[in-house]
């Protein structure tokens, strides 16, 4: 009946030179005609305002008649997720250390290269640095990304956010006039336990999510609790990585008793809730048997 496969064979050897049966082939084809539009920035859809077709969509299965009209949109310059993450996270790591070591021109000259007399300040630096080193390593070795790229302007937006907040927090925590937490050692100890617990939790979730997806694939499956107790939170929450992330920053806020840290935690929480709700909704849409006990980010609450 209708065939949407195009084969081009070598006339002499009958070797298959190229084969058009997936949307991805069209991306390649357009790229050869218009080299400025590399595949990552192409969006092809059946309706000008509709959803983009995916690379692996099979042409034969598309809902078209005897002639197919595709609509093309240039998504703009793209940048890889890995690049964005590495830049986003390297910034706070280095910026915080600059404030910690009291590099000149930040505080009054008599404080240049001095160290804080409060041990919680050293602890905070270790925690903050550990957090971002963990994120960098996870980006390189743990995460499996569904989309290769995002729009280029995102890197400016994201870096402004991460770097800006890191500088703002670090300025006060490492300030010569920093005031340690009111409840002293008790408060700091509790905060550290919460922080470490949530860091391990967050890492456990990242590993569990990675193991859902074989290397190189883009399959989506429902995550379930594993043998690791830190993953048992999957019983109650769709995106426990965000739950643990919130917990880590609450711990850090408690540890430093610093208003800018609380502000950063709040803004992050709002953003992660938006993401968690979206992910939760798409889980519900995609899987008929999705567990009903789960909430997006906070058990039973949100």
């Amino acid at each position, binding site marked *: 009946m*209708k065939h949407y496969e195009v084969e081009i064979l070598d006339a002499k050897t009958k070797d298959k030179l190229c084969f058009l049966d997936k949307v991805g082939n069209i991306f390649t084809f357009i790229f050869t005609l218009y080299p400025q539009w590399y595949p990552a920035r192409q969006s092809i859809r059946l309706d000008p305002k509709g959803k983009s077709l995916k690379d692996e969509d099979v042409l034969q299965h598309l809902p078209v008649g005897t002639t197919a009209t595709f609509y093309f949109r240039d998504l703009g310059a793209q940048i890889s997720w890995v690049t964005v993450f590495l830049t986003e996270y390297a910034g706070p790591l280095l910026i915080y250390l600059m404030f910690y070591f009291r590099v000149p021109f930040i505080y009054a000259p008599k404080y240049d290269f001095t160290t804080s007399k409060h041990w919680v300040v050293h602890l905070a630096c270790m925690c903050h640095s550990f957090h971002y080193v963990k994120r960098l390593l996870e980006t390189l070795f743990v995460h499996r990304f569904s989309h290769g790229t995002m729009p280029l302007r995102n890197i400016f937006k994201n870096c402004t956010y991460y770097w800006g907040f890191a500088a703002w927090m670090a300025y006060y925590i490492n300030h010569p*006039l920093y005031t340690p937490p009111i409840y002293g050692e008790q408060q700091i100890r509790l905060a550290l336990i919460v922080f470490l617990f949530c860091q391990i939790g967050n890492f456990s979730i990242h590993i569990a999510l990675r193991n859902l997806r074989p290397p190189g694939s883009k399959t989506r499956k429902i995550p379930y609790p594993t043998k690791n107790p830190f993953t048992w939170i999957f019983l109650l929450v769709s995106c426990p990585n965000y739950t643990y992330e919130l917990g880590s920053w609450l711990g850090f806020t408690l540890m430093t*008793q*610093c*208003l*800018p840290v609380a502000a950063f935690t709040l803004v992050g929480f709002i953003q992660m809730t938006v993401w968690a709700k979206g992910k939760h909704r798409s889980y519900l849409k995609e899987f008929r048997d999705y567990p009903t006990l789960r909430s997006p980010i906070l058990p039973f609450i949100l």
Partner: protein
Amino acid sequence: MSAPAMGTRKTAHTDSSNKKKKGPGTLAIAYLVIYNVVMTAGWLVIAVGLVRAYLARGSYHGLYYSIEKPLKFFQTGALLEILHCAVGIVPSSVVLTGFQVMSRVFLTWAVTHSVREVQSEDSVLLFVVAWTVTEIIRYSFYTFSLLNHLPYLIKWARYTFFVVLYPMGVAGELLTIYAALPYVQKTGLYSITLPNNYNFSFDYHTFLILVMISYIPLFPQLYFHMIRQRKKVLGHVEEYSKVE
């Protein structure tokens, strides 16, 4: 056996776009008419107050005091417009409206009200007059639009007066903030210093300077947006008369 024709896709698309444009119901329109009438009246009160005070005193110095209360009341009342956008009875962006109203409210309360010494400045009169004329035109424009009886004069005024009033208002605002700077620095108004238990500091003086700087990128964008709107709204009316 043949697949559905491509033609059906187009109508389905327009159907869905028609469904989206619901618009406000009759109750909402009634409320908005009342709101805009009240606001028009309020700003007229301020206009009349300014004129009467000027005639009584014989000078335009220190007229702020004669309209201080209605100015605060009606300018603050404009916060409702953010709600209107959020609820959906007005088709504007919440962020844009919020930004515009908050900047007015900021100037009214956080600068003019808070720094008593600037209240007698002439720059205050500059932005108060600009705001008053603009708002009378703007709110009557909305009122008539809602009632589907918009006189061309009001439409023309709305899209023409801003050419002078907008820069006038901005000048008044900037000069007022500038006048407030030394007093803010001297008294440490709204500022928090280290050390404190929350490990946070805020310098209102520096903040005001940053606000003034932000006018540089923002004002041209808003101004030229209105100029483009003017061409669009008033422009094609001229075209129609050419056709005739």
